[in-house]
């Protein structure tokens, strides 16, 4: 796609110095960022027990945070987590912006393939206009949001998703309906279409759609699919209000969508997926874990830090919501999904009764 070629399927940065800098950020993130949290947790939990008398999840979160923030180690951890994240996005953006005109032109030309639907008059809801994970402009406001997301998440995945390995696993473990009929598949909140492409490769005879709220994301997704010669369709739309007929899809798959939207949108989306699935259709869900048991103070401190300092405004709402009940209340039959190599994820199979 660009002069320096690809690392796997990921376009390299425009300069070696950017690549080296971002390699540093990636390694720092694992070793000094997440690697030092056990020390923060052990120190903070011990201090909470001493000062507040228990480790109960009933403790007031403000009190827990006050205890953690009385320690220099917690302040240092927050500083390095925030700073390395800012370093990541700033350098990724700065690397690609000099070739913005070229990239935008490529996306516009690729859109001539007829596989991209941008709905006239589409209005991005305010809740979606957030710089999730600190990505500058978020998923909706920067014309290069797609490629910025692509390389930024390469850093998050620590090089383990350079060739879409994560999305390929998700596609390959997406559950098909029991009757085996798969004519139409939806990759819900598809972002840059890595999963959409993988779903097409899994179900080559099906019509596969990727849907996302971010116009620059679906434009970039369409460019990726076009350049890889994969015939999939993309549409900018809302997961809670899809422009498709009742019972249109055999499979809907969603990878880490629900912790990025407000709780009422979670409910509306699940109900909307129920509507667009045909009887016997399957909703495959790969998502952050729900808080099904008491969390120690350190975990609550980290979730709260992430929400307020890593622009995850909706994550706590999801974690503490009764996600399984929301799915069942929509009418689905719910069961455990297949294991994923990322043990952090919960996987669910929600089937619309035949």
């Amino acid at each position: 796609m660009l002069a320096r070629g690809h690392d796997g399927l990921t376009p390299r940065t425009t300069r070696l110095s950017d690549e080296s800098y971002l390699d540093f950020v990636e390694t720092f993130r694992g070793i000094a960022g997440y690697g030092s949290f056990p020390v923060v947790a052990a120190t903070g939990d011990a201090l909470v027990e001493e000062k507040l008398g228990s480790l109960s999840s009933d403790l007031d979160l403000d009190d827990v945070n006050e205890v953690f923030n009385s320690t220099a180690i917690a302040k240092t951890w927050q500083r390095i987590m925030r700073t390395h994240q800012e370093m990541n996005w700033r350098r990724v953006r700065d690397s690609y912006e000099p070739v913005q005109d070229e990239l935008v032109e490529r996306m516009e030309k690729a859109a001539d393939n007829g596989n991209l639907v941008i709905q006239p008059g589409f209005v991005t809801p305010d809740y979606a206009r957030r710089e999730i994970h600190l990505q500058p402009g978020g998923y909706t406001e920067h014309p290069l949001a797609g490629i910025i997301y692509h390389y930024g998440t390469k850093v998050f995945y620590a090089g383990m998703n350079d060739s879409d390995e994560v999305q390929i696993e998700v596609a390959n473990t997406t559950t098909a309906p029991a009757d085996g009929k798969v004519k139409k598949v939806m990759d819900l909140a598809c972002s840059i279409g890595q999963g959409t492409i993988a779903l097409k490769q899994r179900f080559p005879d099906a019509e596969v759609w990727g849907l996302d709220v971010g116009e620059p994301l679906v434009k970039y997704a369409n460019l990726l699919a076009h350049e890889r010669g994969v015939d999939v369709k993309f549409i900018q739309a809302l997961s809670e209000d899809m422009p498709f007929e009742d019972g249109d899809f055999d499979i809907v798959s969603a990878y880490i969508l629900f912790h990025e939207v407000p709780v009422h949108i979670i409910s509306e989306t699940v109900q909307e997926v129920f509507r667009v699935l045909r009887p016997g259709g399957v909703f495959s869900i790969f998502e952050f874990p729900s808080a099904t048991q008491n969390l120690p103070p350190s975990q609550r401190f980290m979730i709260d830090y992430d929400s307020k300092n890593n622009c995850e405004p909706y994550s706590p709402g999801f974690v503490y919501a009764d996600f399984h009940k929301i799915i069942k209340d929509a009418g689905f039959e719910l069961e455990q999904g297949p294991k994923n190599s990322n043990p952090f994820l919960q996987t669910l199979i929600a089937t619309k009764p035949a």
Partner: protein
Amino acid sequence: MSEADPDMQQAMHDTAAAEADQFPVGGEIDGPGKQYFEDVVIDNLMDAFLELSAAVWTIRDRNIVLEQVLSTVLAEQGKTVDLGAMIEAYQPTPEVKAARAAERAEMVKNVFASFSKRTVNKTN
């Protein structure tokens, strides 16, 4: 979809407005920045420390690449080459990539060893 009642809609609007104030577009990496220490100088020092570390790695990484490229040039003996372009265009083999990652991890471990090595007392 069912319609929310007016009170619910107002509550959602208020929540969205509060979120927009807390997480404005353009307010994250392009905003004034977060402060975690009482004295912001410590935050600034930490930022500088990370940037310095990244800069050191960036230079070191370029040297590693340069050595690889020079080796290639020497192997070709006498051919005229654009060394800068070769460096920018260099595609590491999986072996070189792994070696670079290992060196990088070693450097990060060394620079930040104190954060995971030292016992921290409860007043820290």
